[in-house]
């Protein structure tokens, strides 16, 4: 077993090593990621923050196998995903990763329950009933399971998306502004579920957010600016994060 130098007690669920992503060439080149090396430790909730255009989404997408790095490498566990082909990447996402996006998380023609079970259905496996019930209880959707997404509110839809990410017990869940389109109360509910999943079941979560309050639910916050990690903060609170963010602007 390899041990990370930075966090000897915990191995990394995902890693990026000197990750670079460049859009365009020559004068017009945009360096969305300009050499990022980072570990996302197991069983931890990591938040990524930074100004708009700093490369947060790009970093997440490249580590999650949705996009390819221009150079450097990205690992899920010990798997170097830059060496995987398209199908292998898809299967890796299906079997080992979970996703929550800001919007458009659900298949409109499937019911809430079918959407939640979709990753398992695709893999041809069944949900553990006790586990499924537990998640349903936490997320509080028992009576809306038969509804289509169009019959659910935005908050309910997002809960379904969280449940879908949790049910297969993935190695790591990537969330890109999961509360970005919700009002603050619903946002708090969603963040509480995610925190609970980390505390109770040891789930690993990486979340991109703009919201200092959302970041305060994480164990650690990474700050990105111009495609590079410029700072990090353990056990953040909303106020400290807000202060740190103000420095970027100032």
């Amino acid at each position, binding site marked *: 077993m390899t041990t990370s130098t930075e966090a000897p007690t915990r191995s990394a669920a995902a890693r990026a090593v000197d990750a670079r992503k460049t859009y365009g060439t020559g004068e017009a080149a945009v360096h969305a990621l300009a050499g990022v090396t980072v570990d996302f430790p197991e069983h931890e909730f990591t938040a990524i923050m930074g100004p708009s255009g700093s490369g947060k989404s790009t970093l997440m*997408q490249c580590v999650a196998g*949705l*996009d390819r790095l221009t150079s450097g490498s990205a690992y899920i566990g010990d798997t170097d995903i830059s060496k995987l082909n*398209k*199908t292998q990447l*898809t*299967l890796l*996402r*299906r*079997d080992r990763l979970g*996703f929550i*996006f*800001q*919007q*458009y*998380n*659900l*298949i*409109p*023609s*499937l019911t809430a329950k079918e959407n939640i079970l*979709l*990753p398992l*259905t*695709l*893999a*041809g496996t069944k949900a553990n009933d006790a586990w499924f019930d537990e998640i349903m209880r936490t997320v509080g959707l028992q009576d809306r399971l038969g509804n289509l997404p*169009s019959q659910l509110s935005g908050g309910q839809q997002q809960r379904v998306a969280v449940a*879908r990410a949790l049910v297969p017990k993935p190695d790591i869940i990537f969330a*890109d502004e999961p509360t970005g389109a919700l009002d603050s109360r619903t946002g708090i509910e969603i963040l509480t579920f995610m925190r609970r999943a980390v505390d109770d079941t040891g789930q690993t979560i990486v979340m991109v957010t703009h919201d200092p309050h959302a970041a305060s639910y994480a164990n650690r916050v990474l700050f990105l600016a111009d495609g590079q990690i410029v700072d990090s903060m353990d056990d953040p609170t909303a106020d400290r994060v807000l202060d740190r963010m103000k420095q970027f602007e100032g």
Partner: protein
Amino acid sequence: MIKLVLSSVRHNLARYLATLVAISAGVGFFVAVSVISDGIISSLDGNVDAQYGTVDVAVVPDDTTTVASTGAEPEPLKLPQSSVDHLLALPGVDGGAGILTAPVAFQAEDGKPFATSATGRLWITDKELNPLTVTEGKAPTSSGQIAVDQGTADDQHLKVGESLTLLTLAGKQKVTLVGITDFGDSDALDTGGTVSISEPDAFTWLNNGQQEYASFYLRGNDPSTLVAEAGQVIPDGFNVQTGNEFRQDQRDANGSFAQGLKKALQAFAVLALLVGGFVIYNTFSVIVAQRLRELAVLAAIGATPRQLKRSLRLEGVVLGIVGSVLGVITGYLLTLALEGVLKATGNTLPGGLSVSTSTIVSGLLLGTIITVLSVMIPARRAGRTEPIEAMREAATESASLGRTRGIVCVVLGVLGLVAMLAGSSLAVIGLGVVAFVASVFVGAPYLARGGARAARPLLERFGIEGRLAVDNSVRSPKRTATTANALLIGVFLVTLVAVAGASIRDFAIQQVNDLQSADYVVVSTGGTIDPAFVAKLRDVKDVNEVVAFRREPVTIDSKASIASAGDVAQMAKIASIKAENGSLADLTTGTIAVLDTGEGKVPAVGSTVTVKDSRGKDVQLRVVAVLAPTQDTGQTGSIIDEHTFDSLVGDVAPTVAFVDIASGAQGSTKDAIQNLADLRPDITAQEGNAVGKLIRSVFDFLIKAVTGLLLMSVVIALIGIINTMSLSILERRRELGLLRIIGMTDKRVRRMVTLESVLISLLGTLGGMLTGLVVSLLLVLSFNRLSQATITPSIPWVELIVILVLGVLLGVLAALLPARRSTRMEVLDAIAAS
């Protein structure tokens, strides 16, 4: 406005591509068939002018409808030399030409015959009336000289001056080839080749030595007077026409076929265009739905419904015109390609390629009008856009189906069924078919939804992708239905033609087979069935009996007909010759058994009829029996007592024979009879059930031809499926991306697209097939009801299964492009902000 429209068309070009292809394919097909049939028509017209251009007055036999209706090849009346002498002696006649033809063939030195379907023709000495020109050598003027057409000379490598053996009705003849002839811009006047024979030989070789002509043409300055005078000197059964009348008749006879062909082909092209209409309608519906936001914004900033509608209609007009112009070009290229293929295989397109203005104009109009009509409904929808729709989430058509639709569907369906079941005229039944098919179209969204749901358990076996494929087609049932309808109409017609065609074919064959007939009919055209030939026939293994009889063209009470004489008792034993009324046993001197042709009045038993032979001799005969119409009495015509026949036409030799073979006879017996016939150019042997076989082959050919022509509409329906799938994939970019993000492999995404495409094409195929089955069965029923026939429906299962399998394959084929496209999109599109 126009600028906005043009930029919109340019912007959406990819989406409009299928529309353009559909329009131009339909218009192209239309133009191609029009050009080709125009070519055929003009070449046939041209032939008539080349052949008969200088004829001022024509003396031709009356139509011999009597005999033609019963299936036998009649031997028409001939004009005797005495009448021709009278004609030529009329004042004002500048020249004349008699037509006389008979089959001939050549025999090579090794005894093998060649050019076996050539026509021997009396050489016409009047230069102006002769349609043939001598291109090499000279005209055949004295005995033993012949000329052949350029085509035959080339094919058989014949040279002027060569000595040849010609097989004629009068046996083998030693001849010298003295000339090569040409007919207009084609090589030969007759399809199998023309052999011109000099006057001294012609009557002996072509007509048993009788100085007679099949028809006679005159030149003269005053045709109308000539016609009146000629009418006085010609015998019964002939007709005098002016050159113009005569040419018009010839043109009609040739042209009606080509005109009919043109209309039928054009009908298929229009059908293909209508199917294209479904594609256009679908494309625009989807585009309107996708642009709802844009339209709503326009409405919000003050665009009136009328303006919204007009902008969409204008897009339709632009597309219609562009597509139609492309179609005209495609059509012309298509005919060029066809001509090229024909040239490469050594053939030519008759009449060449001439694109008439009317073809171009009707092609452009058809394409544009159908496009504009197809855009009407989507344009109305665009006009109804409310500003509020700019805020709504969903950008797809509504999945709900209005109440009116259900009511219209049921009413039309019931009306259609009732009309088909109880209609008392063809028109009512036809309307019933239209109403029923319309009801299927209107109700298609229900069928699509129901059918897709019914297919769900089956498709779910393919996993979640099968389930999603069903869901997606149910989500927009109208679009699914319109796409399927485009295919439905083609499959409906194919099934209708296959089932109704097969039913009628089998019925007709059964009817013919019910009529017993002689096993073989051997006919000499121009020659005789001499005792030596009869003996040879009898020597063939398994031949039981050969009965030869004499047959002559006559008129009975001035109606052209044929009459036969022979050993009636023997004939009746091996052939189906029966009296409906009276008795054949009463056939004695001075009596006749007349044939009931099924048309007009039949003389009663006991009455007297006047029978005239071609030389004008006549005799009064008492009717002792009326013959039932059968295949065999079709050969004999009326039957006259042998002695009476002798005194009427002379003691001529038999020209026809019935042959009876043992019931277990082998194919070798057939071959032996055929070989005997082949050695004599004048003799053909026809199997007794040949009519049944002929009917079968004609029907089978028609069914195949119609099916082939319907293929064009199926191709356009295929474009429609590709189009719908592509549009729906664009629409579901996010959904597909999400599925791939959370773990659906590309292979499964492609399979999902394929399954949906197969589902749509199966809905269309099954729907069309069921509609076709129902309509054709009801048609057979009502046909039976109206005509007291007893047609049993024949369902061609094999063909139906083949169609079904093809439907599945079509779906797979249609999915190829969209499926590739579905996985070429970026997964990140799913989460990109819109």
